[in-house]
């Protein structure tokens, strides 16, 4: 691993200042579960590290609208176990528990989870061509082993997927992300935080240089929805999603009054299935309606040589997940 300069920050403003003062490239370090691995592989080569693990951002606080503010330094395991989260947003707790291992969840933070980079094999392999790792070099995944790659929103330059489970739940729950940077604070809707690859697959997020995630807010309007997270993977535990579905469904008077649907493992970002939601809203929650919604969402899906199964799988998991929620509501 390349040597680097290490700075430990004690509060948000000094962390932002410390990063701005360092020679580029500089990185914030939280749990380290992804960044340290990437540094060891030589994919990330920061000249300076600003350690933010001791920032006072580890609280889970209630908001006036019935929502919750999750500090960026809250560990994934603490978040999944939190009483308020399990009561108001069980979908988030479930999604977190379906990711990684207990050891990693004890280390990984809320902010760091959003900053994870793809697990595309070709991104990790320094001998392979990768437009995300080295812009303009090409993409060896395109004609390679692309079984785990994207079916939605990909570009000719990049077919990588976002690896997070937690973020799929945050997308479904209409989270917002609070940021602090050299020119002040701002808030991004969760759907605007991650990017599709387009012409610049090396840019994963819409963070500005030097910006730090300080917290993630969940709105009261997303609280206590009947919800579930279903993840399909190659083994029963400790594997990234082939397809995952975060779903919430509220049925009143025989019609769908609120529906949230997000997909993991299918795109460069957590994929909010807005098309499927609009098909379902104000309609009866029938298997036929769920199938129509899934088909509408997946109509633009493009299979690669080895991942066509994901389109079928996503359709089935969407229908199964919504059917489970509808049956639960009918009981």
């Amino acid at each position, binding site marked *: 691993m390349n*040597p680097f300069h290490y700075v*430990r920050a004690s509060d948000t403003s000094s962390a932002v200042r410390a990063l701005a003062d360092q020679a580029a490239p500089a990185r914030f370090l939280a749990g380290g579960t992804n960044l340290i*691995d990437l540094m060891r592989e030589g994919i990330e080569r920061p000249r300076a590290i600003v350690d933010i693990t001791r920032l006072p951002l580890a609280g889970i606080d209630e908001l006036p609208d019935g929502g919750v503010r999750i500090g960026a330094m809250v560990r994934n395991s603490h978040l999944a176990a939190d009483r308020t989260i399990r009561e108001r947003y069980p979908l988030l707790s479930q999604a977190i*528990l379906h990711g*990684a291992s207990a050891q*990693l969840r*004890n280390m990984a933070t809320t902010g760091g989870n959003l900053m994870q980079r793809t697990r595309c094999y070709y991104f990790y392999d320094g001998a392979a061509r990768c437009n995300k790792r080295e812009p303009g070099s090409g993409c060896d995944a395109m004609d390679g082993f692309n079984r785990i790659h994207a079916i939605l929103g990909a570009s000719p330059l990049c077919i990588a997927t976002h690896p997070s489970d937690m973020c799929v739940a945050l997308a479904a729950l209409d989270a917002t992300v609070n940021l602090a940077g050299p020119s002040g604070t701002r808030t991004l809707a969760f759907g605007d935080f991650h990017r599709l690859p387009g012409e610049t697959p090396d840019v994963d997020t819409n963070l500005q240089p030097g910006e730090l995630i300080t917290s993630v807010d969940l709105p009261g309007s997303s609280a206590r929805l009947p919800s579930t997270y279903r993840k399909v993977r190659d083994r029963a535990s400790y594997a990234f999603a082939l397809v995952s579905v975060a779903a919430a469904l509220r049925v009143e008077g025989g019609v769908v009054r609120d529906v949230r649907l997000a997909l993991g493992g299918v795109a460069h970002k957590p994929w909010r299935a807005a098309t499927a939601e609009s098909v379902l809203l104000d309609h009866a929650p029938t298997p036929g309606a769920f199938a129509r919604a899934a088909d509408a969402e997946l109509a633009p899906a493009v299979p690669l040589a080895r991942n066509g199964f994901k389109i079928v799988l996503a359709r089935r998991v969407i229908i199964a997940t919504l059917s489970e929620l509808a049956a639960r509501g009918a009981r």
Partner: protein
Amino acid sequence: MTVVLRVNGRSHSVSIEPRVSLLDALRDRLQLMGTKKGCDQGACGACTVLVDGERINSCLTFAVQYEDREIRTIEGLSEDGQLHPVQRAFIEHDGFQCGYCTPGQICSAVAMLAEWRNGMPSAVSSSDAPAPADLNEDELRERMSGNLCRCGAYVGIRQAIQEAAGGTVR
């Protein structure tokens, strides 16, 4: 830089570069060879240690991040010359073959049992229900999935942990 690491109840001042992992600091600087380096990328769990009672992968860390935290390794589990109950159960049930993953398995199991007793949910138990009173096989497999055993001694490992949990060994 000089970093003070508190390991198994003792403080050690070590002179290391910031890029040194906690795993390498424990093994190479403090000569605590019980903690093992398997994959060095957070996939196998052989490097599992306890920090303030919680299990972590010591390979995916910089030691400097864990300054002043209470670190416990396999060498620190016994008390007054008596092996930890989880250690005794691993011996009783032959929870190993080559032994390389064993320190990580045992540290992980010690913390896992504490998590389970404290009501930590898992992907197997529903997140809106309390943790199950019975640490059944599905629960145990899920909660220990971060520790791999290439010898495949999982049957003995499971029996050892179930005994340490106070449950029936099936």
